């Protein structure tokens, strides 16, 4: 059984450690500054009336554009952070000392993922709310943030996929190679989601199509980040959801569990 006290201790340690990660902090602060600057430029270019008019014309389109961009950027930062979570402990020779304590490897791994997830979601929430606050202020229109807050569920699931993938890859590749390999894997997952958006997986497997089988493996094994992204977009756009997303959530949860167990087996077998 996993000890919650150990996971809590190590998750707090992860947050403390990664909040001092200069690359991640630079990217996060840079993002916030860029968003503020972008709004300042828009505000300076347009008259206040135009801004109000624009808000009326596009509804929440402008703020949603920023939030959409923020989502993609957040996933990129997640991949970068995930590559650092465990790898840095190995490189700094701290991992051996931590695991010489009565800490299970699965507790360590879970805590690193949870700590990383909390940092990324904190950043996403703060930056997303900042966009809405700035937009509301410059357009003098109150923008409801309910859709954004609802989207935290689907965004949180996507961030977790990105962290799992990058931690997994960081076991085998260092630094930039890890990031590149993680980005490639995420693209393959997205491509597999796209491939099966209009095809039936059983039909593809029965035909024995090579590319289809290749994508089918990724589509079945990994959380469907493409479908989660579409779900996220529809939430943010206030589009009426035509179908239940419970199967998607269910598949993702099972998939997280399988990947985490696989990651844990590999980590347990790793000589340090």
């Amino acid at each position, binding site marked *: 059984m996993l000890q919650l*006290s150990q996971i809590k*201790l190590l998750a707090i*340690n992860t947050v403390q450690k990664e909040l001092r990660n200069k690359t991640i902090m630079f990217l996060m602060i840079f993002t916030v500054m860029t968003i503020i600057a972008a709004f300042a430029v828009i505000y300076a270019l347009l008259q206040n009336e135009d801004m109000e008019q624009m808000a009326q014309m596009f509804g929440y389109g402008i703020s949603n554009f920023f939030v959409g961009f923020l989502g993609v950027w957040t996933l990129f930062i997640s991949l970068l952070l995930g590559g650092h979570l465990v790898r840095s402990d190995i490189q*700094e020779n701290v991992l051996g000392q931590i695991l*010489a*304590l009565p800490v299970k490897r699965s507790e360590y791994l879970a805590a690193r993922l949870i700590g990383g997830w909390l940092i990324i979601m904190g950043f996403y929430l703060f930056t997303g709310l900042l966009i809405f606050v700035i937009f509301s202020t410059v357009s003098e229109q109150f923008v409801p943030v309910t859709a954004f807050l609802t989207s935290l569920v689907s965004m949180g699931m996507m961030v977790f996929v990105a962290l799992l993938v990058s931690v997994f890859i960081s076991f085998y590749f260092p630094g930039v190679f890890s990031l590149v390999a993680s980005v490639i894997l995420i693209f393959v997952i997205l491509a597999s989601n796209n491939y099966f958006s209009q095809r039936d997986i059983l039909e593809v497997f029965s035909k024995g199509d090579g590319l289809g089988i290749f994508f089918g493996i990724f589509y079945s094994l990994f959380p469907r980040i493409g479908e989660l992204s579409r779900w996220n977009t529809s939430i943010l756009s206030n589009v009426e959801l035509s179908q239940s997303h419970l199967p998607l959530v269910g598949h993702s949860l099972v998939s997280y569990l399988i990947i985490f167990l696989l990651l844990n087996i590999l980590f347990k077998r790793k*000589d340090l």
Partner: protein
Amino acid sequence: MSVFLQAKNVSKNYGRHKALENLSLSVNKGQTYALLGPNGAGKTTFVKALLGLVSYDSGEISINGRLVNDPQSRSLLAYLPEKFQFYSFDTPQKVLRFYARARNLPGTQINSQIDRALEQVVMTDNTTKKLSKLSKGQMQRVGLASLLIGDPGLLILDEPFSGLDPIGIKELRDIIRGLKEQGKTLFINSHILAEMEKICDSLAVLDNGHCLAQGDAHDLLNSQSLENFFYNLVRPENS
């Protein structure tokens, strides 16, 4: 005396290289045990196997009857690596607090144990300085203090004298003697033979993963120096 640490026929291969081959040894409670050997003998591999950091291919290692595959076996021991490192932004106080929490110490005991450990390793100043501002000797003292948190029965020290100046060596030797007087079981992996001769009760000599000799230090040395004993064992063709 009861056996506290026992290894039976432990073997470990890295590809074709045999790091440990049928290594068996036992350490009694309260003993200071030296694991000696030249570089590449398999000492570090054995210590890592003991800590569960590397898996072994066959045999078994137990601490107080509990197999080291069980993470709870690590609640019985504390480990000081050759070069103690932790996050540079932390202070000695924070590092020791982390160790105390990880060893599941009750909150009421944490502060008193930290103060006592720091006092024992003679480090009552600089306890709120960042680790990045500490000298190598001070870092090693923080590591030593971490050994004492939670009062574990078995202390594993990996090359503790390595890189220390003569004053540091003497101070460390005194600390180790103090721990021994408290009844701690010490397992020290080292190649600083002169120091080990002064503090160990029992020893084992490893070479190429094989145990060449082990037992009570007094019986094994039989009035010769540890250096001569070691050299004759490891390089018999030159003796």
